[in-house]
């Protein structure tokens, strides 16, 4: 399954390189990729960065989705549902206003959001309550969204227009500087990638995980902060793309036969963003709809199905 998803992601990335206002035939694409200076200049300056950033951002969203869903024991608790993504977007827009690097702002916003959530959803005795996390996160997301709107109001018209597009989740305007920033994010994903086995054990429940030698509390806080940074970093690359993280978690789990596999979640997230970006550039290219709209349209039914499944299992 892992290989199948890898192949799917590569195929979608290749398709994404070929997609656009002018579609390239396979041999044209190959020729362009082999000739960065001449015939491939357009592909190398526009489409390659777009695809690389999309892959990294999608992988980051998918990974943090899986980690949050596993840590909080709730398939709805992905960063885009519990407000981490929206907090990061608020931080990024605020950073834009103050002239601070956007990624720093996004990180700050994401960390504040996850800290606030930890406090809001904590039960006085039983610790974090899996059901309350999602509800409080929903409210947090709405609050952060309203704050972002208020910030945008203070911007000039052109900045505000750009910010609105970005808030929809877009890969438009991606160039090589963004690729550098995207690659900076990769080291942050390492701890999460290596945490596969720990996540496996956390699934067994806190007590059992503890008796297997895990320091559950520290692990949860450390992995949670790391996952928040990864999700916020992805937001700073392409805006808050809705539901990539939410959908990538469960689908990645299916691909890994029910186990929380970080690699599978990353592949699913990357493939999801590729698919949405191909749609964004080919379905209605004139309207320039943000890529995040397509991820939302594909992801919202996943959200509804998850709610239904949880209801039937009485987990909600």
């Amino acid at each position, binding site marked *: 399954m892992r290989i199948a998803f890898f192949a799917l992601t590569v195929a979608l990335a290749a398709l994404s390189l070929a997609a656009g206002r002018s579609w390239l035939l396979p041999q044209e694409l190959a020729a362009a990729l082999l000739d960065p200076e001449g015939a491939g200049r357009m592909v190398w300056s526009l489409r390659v960065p777009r695809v690389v950033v999309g892959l990294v951002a999608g992988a980051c969203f998918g990974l943090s989705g899986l980690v949050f869903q596993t840590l909080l024991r709730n398939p709805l608790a992905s960063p885009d549902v519990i407000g981490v993504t929206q907090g990061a977007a608020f931080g990024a827009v605020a950073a834009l206003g103050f002239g601070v690097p956007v990624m720093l702002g996004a990180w700050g916003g994401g960390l504040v959001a996850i800290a606030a959530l930890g406090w809001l959803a904590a039960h006085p005795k039983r610790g974090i309550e899996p059901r309350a996390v999602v*509800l409080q996160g929903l*409210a947090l997301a709405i609050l952060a969204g309203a704050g972002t*709107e*208020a910030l945008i109001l203070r911007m000039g018209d052109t900045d505000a227009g750009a910010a609105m597009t970005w808030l929809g989740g877009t890969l438009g305007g991606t160039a090589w500087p963004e690729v550098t920033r995207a690659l900076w994010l990769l080291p942050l994903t390492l701890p999460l990638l290596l945490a596969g086995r720990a996540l496996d054990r956390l699934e067994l429940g806190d007590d059992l995980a503890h008796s297997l030698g895990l320091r559950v509390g520290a692990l949860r806080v450390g992995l949670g902060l790391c996952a928040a940074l990864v999700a916020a970093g992805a937001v700073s690359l392409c805006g808050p793309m809705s539901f990539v993280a939410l959908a990538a978690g469960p689908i990645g789990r299916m691909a890994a036969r029910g186990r929380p596999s970080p690699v599978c979640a990353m592949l699913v997230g990357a493939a999801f963003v590729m698919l949405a970006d191909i749609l964004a550039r080919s379905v209605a290219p004139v309207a320039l709809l943000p890529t995040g*709209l397509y991820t939302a*349209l594909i992801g*919202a039914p996943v959200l509804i199905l998850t*709610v239904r499944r949880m*209801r039937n299992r009485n987990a909600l």
Partner: protein
Amino acid sequence: MSLIRHLALLWLAVLAGSVAALCLGALDYPLHAAWAMLTDYDPADPAQAIMAGMRLPRVIAAVVVGAALAVAGVIMQAMTRNPLADPGLTGVNAGAALAVVLGLYAFGAVSQPVVAGLALLGAALAAVLVRLLAGGGDSTLRLPLAGAAFGTLCLSLVALIVLLNPEARNIYRFWMVGSLAVSDMAAVLRLAPIAGIGIVIALLAARPIEALMLGVEMGSALGLNVGRVMGLGLAAVAMTAGASVAIAGPVGFIGLIAPHIARRFGGGLAAQVLLACPIGAGLAVFADLAGRWFARPAELQLGIVLAMVGAPAFMILVRRMLREAA
């Protein structure tokens, strides 16, 4: 008697807020000037055009929308036995907005009655669908979660449809967050009676709903037609929420907060409906004024101001429920 006194005081507060909303804004008018404009209207004067053409319809729209959403919230919270029910959070407003936008897109410019009809239909359908999705059971958390999922799907579709028409981008904000910025007097006055009928139905249905909530068996034993009571409640929610969406787009949180404030005054469900009207109207009037005042000369949409107040209120409610469950 205390109900009448409370109602009088609350409506007085709404009146005071409305007067402030008429006088204050990007341009401030002294009280006597505002009065002169309202009593002795001179269309040639541009300052008076602002008052009659923009602020007055806006204040009336805020009162209607606020009262309607508050009543929708009271009835929804009673019927679902869920203190977190709200036409915004449960996706009813989003469903109504989707129905209207679909209609506008499919048939081009449609008349006001058609818009209202679509909004009612969308609100009713959304209420039923979300209830089915959430299922029965005791968990208070299901309904807002199912509603959020459904509402997100509806609003994504609204965004898709609205953004596909390049010339429609300026109405995007209206259909996504809800706003009173484009209130038009004729439209408001045509839609207000629908909200009014919804409120009257809510008042008539309050008693039977209360009885029904003692338990379906108990309700039947008291001689209630369960289906009819549920239908009346649904009609009240659809008419109030639908009319408010047709006037101001999907505005959230009034339906959540107003019933909780109304409960503080005590009384049965019918009293709650009556009390919720001025409370919701006041919330809408003051929130809209705040959005215009703090950001002037620009303005923050009503839906956004309410989210800033309502989201923390929601968080406090959930936290309190957590503690009570302890």
